[in-house]
């Protein structure tokens, strides 16, 4: 249960909201690099944290992200011409560079310098891995560029997708740290999904449906450990890291690539679910990459030409009651990503947390909300920068391992939970 005012504090991310300000302290994923594939390519409309923006890549390969609307008459620059080092409004030809600075107002004498007086709000856009990242906060407090492992391994070792989720970011993110739903909602996928099946650890999941949880605070967020019984009194641990505000990873299975997510607010009722797969030490196989493109694992299929999932609320997510009856999927919805999204969207755009009835196994969620609230208020009231901004906090991994019963995972798996270039993931 969460009081109404705290629910609003954590879920509202437009400008001048406390959580909106907090998100603006981080580099967040804005677009797939493939959306701006070449110089002078068509501009792309982007909505982030309640702001309508336009992204483009100019003639010199510089990325720009700025207010979508021309300062002259409020026309959308999506209709504009991306040419000769800037984006030109299609209405009267006003032209802007990649920072949002107006560089040409054709109706005014060039010598007047009028263009210099016009500036659209612009944000930096940098390419790291498959992702274009932006920082929408104050330039003076801009953190160093992100160094998440999925974005820094060689291109052949990583794959990233994004999908539109029709819900607030927080309920989507909470799914990423809610380890107790896996034994139910995703139980079918462990046997059939090509990016999960075949791992020895799956058997532990099958044999022990009542995991025990340990939630441990870390500098950047949390580690949520789920332990199940293994052989000879040992424990099979699956550990999920959460880094503030919205980065999560799924514990790995066998030698399958590792998965994770970013949950980024579009506005208060929509978010981007970013999903990535990578292997720290080898290239993804052709079959693995194809499976990801086909929507397996944490990915999904799309309505062609969009980032809207093909299974969506307009078609009841293509519910298959026969598959549910057969046990192919627990909820009758195909695919792990859409199993999560369908249920999270069904809660409503912003779930009313005053009515929920949490139980002890929800402590990962309770702690995450607690830390978000504290960080949000510390930033608002004291100007304290929130955790998760510094690159050291990005060097995390999920891990799975069998341990003797007397070894705390936070110590025994410390190295396993740290991203180490060239070192394979710890997995069972």
């Amino acid at each position, binding site marked *: 249960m969460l009081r109404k005012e705290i629910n609003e504090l954590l879920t509202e991310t437009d400008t001048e909201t406390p959580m909106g300000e907090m998100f603006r302290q981080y580099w967040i994923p804005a677009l797939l690099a493939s959306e701006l594939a070449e110089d002078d390519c068509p501009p792309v409309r982007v909505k982030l944290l309640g702001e309508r923006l336009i992204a483009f890549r100019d003639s010199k390969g510089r990325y720009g992200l700025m207010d979508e609307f021309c300062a002259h008459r409020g026309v959308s620059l999506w209709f504009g011409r991306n040419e000769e080092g800037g984006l030109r409004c299609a209405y009267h030809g006003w032209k802007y560079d990649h920072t949002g600075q107006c560089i040409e107002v054709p109706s005014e004498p060039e010598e007047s310098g009028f263009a210099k007086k016009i500036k659209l709000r612009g944000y930096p856009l940098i390419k790291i891995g498959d992702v274009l990242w932006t920082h929408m906060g104050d330039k003076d407090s801009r953190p160093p560029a992100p160094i998440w492992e999925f974005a820094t391994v060689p291109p052949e070792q990583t794959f990233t997708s994004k999908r539109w989720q029709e819900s607030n970011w927080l309920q989507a993110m909470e799914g990423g740290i809610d380890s107790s739903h896996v034994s139910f909602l995703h139980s079918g996928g462990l046997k059939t999904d090509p990016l999960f099946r075949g791992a020895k650890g799956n058997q532990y999941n099958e044999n022990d449906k009542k995991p025990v949880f340990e939630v441990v605070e870390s500098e950047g967020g949390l580690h949520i450990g789920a332990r199940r019984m293994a052989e000879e009194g040992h424990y099979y641990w699956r550990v999920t890291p959460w880094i503030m505000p919205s980065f999560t990873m799924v514990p790995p299975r066998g030698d399958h690539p590792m998965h994770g997510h970013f949950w980024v607010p579009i506005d208060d009722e929509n978010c981007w679910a970013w999903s990535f797969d990578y292997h720290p030490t080898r290239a993804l196989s052709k079959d693995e990459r194809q499976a990801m493109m086909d929507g397996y694992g944490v990915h999904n299929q799309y309505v062609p030409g969009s980032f809207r999932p*093909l299974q969506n609320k307009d078609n009841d997510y293509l519910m298959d009651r026969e598959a549910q009856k057969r046990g192919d999927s627990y909820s009758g919805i195909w695919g792990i990503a859409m199993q999560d999204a369908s249920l999270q969207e069904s809660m409503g755009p912003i779930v009313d947390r005053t009515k929920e009835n949490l139980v002890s196994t929800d402590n990962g969620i309770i702690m995450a909300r607690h830390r978000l609230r504290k960080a949000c208020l510390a930033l608002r009231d004291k100007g304290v920068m929130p955790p998760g901004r510094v690159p050291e906090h990005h060097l995390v991994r999920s891990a799975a391992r069998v341990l003797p019963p007397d070894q705390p995972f936070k110590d025994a798996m410390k190295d396993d939970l740290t991203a180490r270039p060239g070192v394979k993931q710890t997995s069972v």
Partner: protein
Amino acid sequence: MPHDSEDMFEADNATRKGRGPVDHPTILGGCARAATAAEAKFRVQYPNSAPRISRIFALDAAAAEAMYAVTEDPWNDAHFLTLSAGGKIGPDTRAADLPLSHPDGRAANLLDEIAGADMVVLLATDGSSEGAAEVIARECFERKIMCAGLALGRTRAPEELDRVVNSMRRFTRVLVVAQDDDYIPAMLTALRA
């Protein structure tokens, strides 16, 4: 599933087998599209849970101090209990002999306290009360009561915190390691204690 994209797009826009037109539900509330803000006002408003019976045990003096800071808050039916000082408590200690007391100093009996409880929370800042943790957790286990542990570690050295965690690990279904005492009210509020 999976269908190829064309098949699925077809399904998206046309019909599903035997279910009628996708885009034209009889009423909005009859399909997943009902998950809109406008439809939220039609959610039935009523109290959907009875008050929980929670019992919180502070296993050492520092944990008791942290707990006392919140006992005056408006809780539902939570009892806050501390282990009285003195006397060695081992796993063989009988439940009835566990020296417990309420914040006002009244003595308490473990079995009376957990009778009918929905949730038990153990608070600890050091590993000194492993025996008491085992006694309480054992009685909870026998009565199918969920037992959670909260290790408070703000001022503790890592090795000392490990002792706390290890002392509770065997006995709790959920174990939380929190750096600050303010997680106590946050957790208890979230769990409707």
